[in-house]
């Protein structure tokens, strides 16, 4: 086990289930024997605002928030929020983004435009970028609601954590009747 702390940022829009995804991540890291800290802001941000969840694991973790510019992996659940959070990432960091656009209020009202070139702009700065359509892949796995689990599957391939810990965490955090479809969704994500 390396002494180095790994920094993961989960970003998106309030209501997307980001907090649950970060709980599954933290549980996995604890089961794998690491020290873990995670932090996010509840409250106002749940009403459709931007959400950033910080998850850190390693031999010993101090700060519960990822120091600015030290994120190893930006795990984006929505494109604009992924782009907005790029300054949190270290140079050469990895971006794993869900190809989903959720219009903020000014775009809904026709006063601003949702930029259509965000994937290119992200890729330009962070060549190690993976873009995947979580929603579509989740439907293939059997349930659109398992989109976040697809994304977790894709993330799992980029971390050195044994499969058994991921599945144990899913078993603990996901309701029994949704477990099978979530396992399928997780494996779907691992194809990326």
């Amino acid at each position: 086990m390396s002494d180095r702390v790994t920094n993961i940022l989960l970003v998106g829009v309030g209501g997307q289930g980001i907090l649950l995804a970060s709980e599954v991540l933290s549980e996995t890291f604890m089961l794998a024997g690491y020290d873990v800290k995670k932090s996010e802001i509840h409250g106002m941000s749940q009403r459709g605002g931007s959400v950033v969840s910080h998850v850190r694991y390693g031999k010993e973790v101090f700060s519960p928030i990822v120091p600015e510019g030290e994120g190893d992996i930006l795990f984006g659940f929505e494109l604009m929020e992924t782009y907005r959070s790029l300054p949190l990432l270290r140079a050469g960091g990895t971006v794993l983004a869900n190809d989903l656009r959720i219009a903020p209020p000014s775009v809904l009202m026709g006063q601003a435009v949702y930029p259509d070139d965000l994937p290119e702009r992200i890729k330009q700065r962070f060549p190690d970028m993976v873009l995947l359509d979580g929603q579509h892949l989740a439907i293939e796995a059997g349930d659109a609601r398992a989109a976040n689990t697809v994304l977790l599957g894709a993330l799992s391939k980029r971390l050195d954590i044994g499969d058994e810990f991921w599945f144990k965490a899913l078993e603990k955090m996901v309701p029994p009747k949704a477990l099978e479809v979530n396992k399928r969704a997780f494996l779907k994500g691992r194809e990326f």
Partner: protein
Amino acid sequence: MKEILSGNEAIARGAYEAGCRVASAYPGTPSTEILENVIHYREINASWAPNEKVALEVAIGASFGGARALCTMKHVGVNVAADPLFTLSYTGVNGGLVLVSADDPEMHSSQNEQDNRNYAKFAKIPMLEPADSQECKDFTRLAFELSEQYDTPVMLRTTTRISHSKSIVQLEEPVTGLPEPALVKNAAKLVMLPGNARIRHPFVEERMVRLSEAASTMSINQIELRDTSIGIITSGTSFQYVREVLPQASTLKLGMVHPLPTDLICQFAESVTTLYVVEELDPFIEDQVKAMGIAVKGKELLSLCGELTPGRLRLSFHLSPEGTTPVDGGLPPRPPNMCPGCPHRGVFYLLNQLKAYVTGDIGCYTLGFLPPLNAMDTCVCMGASISTASGIARVLPPEQQQRVVAVIGDSTFLHTGINSLMDMAYNQVPATVIILDNRITAMTGRQDNPASGHTLMGASSDAVDLTQLCHAVGIKHVRTVNPLDLAATRTAIAEEMARPEPSVVITNKPCVLIKREGVFTRGAAYAVECGVCTGCRACLKIGCPAIEWRPADDGSKKGKAYIDPLLCTGCDVCRQLCTFGAIRRMS
């Protein structure tokens, strides 16, 4: 056994392990989840109080009765509970009493960022400050013990980062053998008339001296010597940032931030070359260290405002920041918004149309301030909407007086708004009050309240009848409207605004997030008929997240509205705004 717990979950666990019997609170971010987790331990009688003063007094009663009692609130809640708190310092306790103050540096969900460590000093009571979830649990247990040992309430201070961060906690079994609660007469200690209070005050002063002396040998106050050229006194989440950014620095980590361990601070100051205090908000520790005659650096490096982060600490110590990759500006912001189908939305649309001057209050509906609704003109604190309306109306000529409307939620009304309404009725101030009764304390995450008909422990309860309550305090004109019926609501508000007497309008539709069966029912979604929509944008004026403007393909300013059927709850408000009949309920 170990689990990943948030600071709030760990405090609940700590109360359980400490044998706490009663827990009382008013919800407030970032403290709310403490009591929501206490209910998992059925040994504890946990309840929501109408406000923080009541919550603390319930805990005081339980303590006087001989039981360990927990009371939790957000930082501004302590302002409401300050009256009993200061005298509780004099009476002391029977069963241990712990008051959690969850502060919110950076104001993630608050109207100010007051530093409640000042309350501990002001009220002359000890305060512990945990730095992670393990300490949240352990310090809660310790706080109960100190409370009984020193005959004092103990404050446990968290911040948003401590309350809402998760880390690994080792669980323990609860203590056993605590004395059974019983009635014990001890008027000299518990009846705070001047004669008794004059005897208790010297006890308080002497107690704080004893605590200060003991603090230097408490294991929660810990010196760790590393490189002695830099020594940092710190506590709470700031300690974690210090260890992250300045791993070689020597530290004095304070688990108790009031009273300070003076001997330990002197010893640490002598061991290091340059002494710093790293703390968020006020120079609370720094000022006291300076008063001890010790040279120390603190707020000349660190901000008085906002929360600390590793990056900000790095800048303060002139360490080069990690390279960050800036993004182009001009991204549309993503502020929070009222939910699709929220019963408040139409009311704020109408208040804007009626050119009302709106005194607001604390809750989801404070979002009525944001565009496109733009319908809030003041917001100070819990309950202030009605009393500030009452004050404004007193100084205005009648035609402007009529425009003053207070808006307040059901939970906030019962918190402190009821006192303000009594003032308005008693002094016959002709302003209008709208009680946005959505049957829940929504902003903090749907907690029950005395008007919801349910308790925190899940029991049914008689709901407060808001109409009768308003009548009882002397308001003659009270009417109830369906806020999803814009015409009826507009008529009701306009008529009451014109009335030269105090009046109340109560809206009666529930929060769309309530999950309890039979309260909120989702209707069939609506859709825009493209052929009928003229692109007039009238439906966009309510700012519903389910309605989107879709520009025409030709790049012109033309376009049509679109309703997302997955988000639409079928509230019908947008249909009422469409004069062309383009919005229809889907079958």
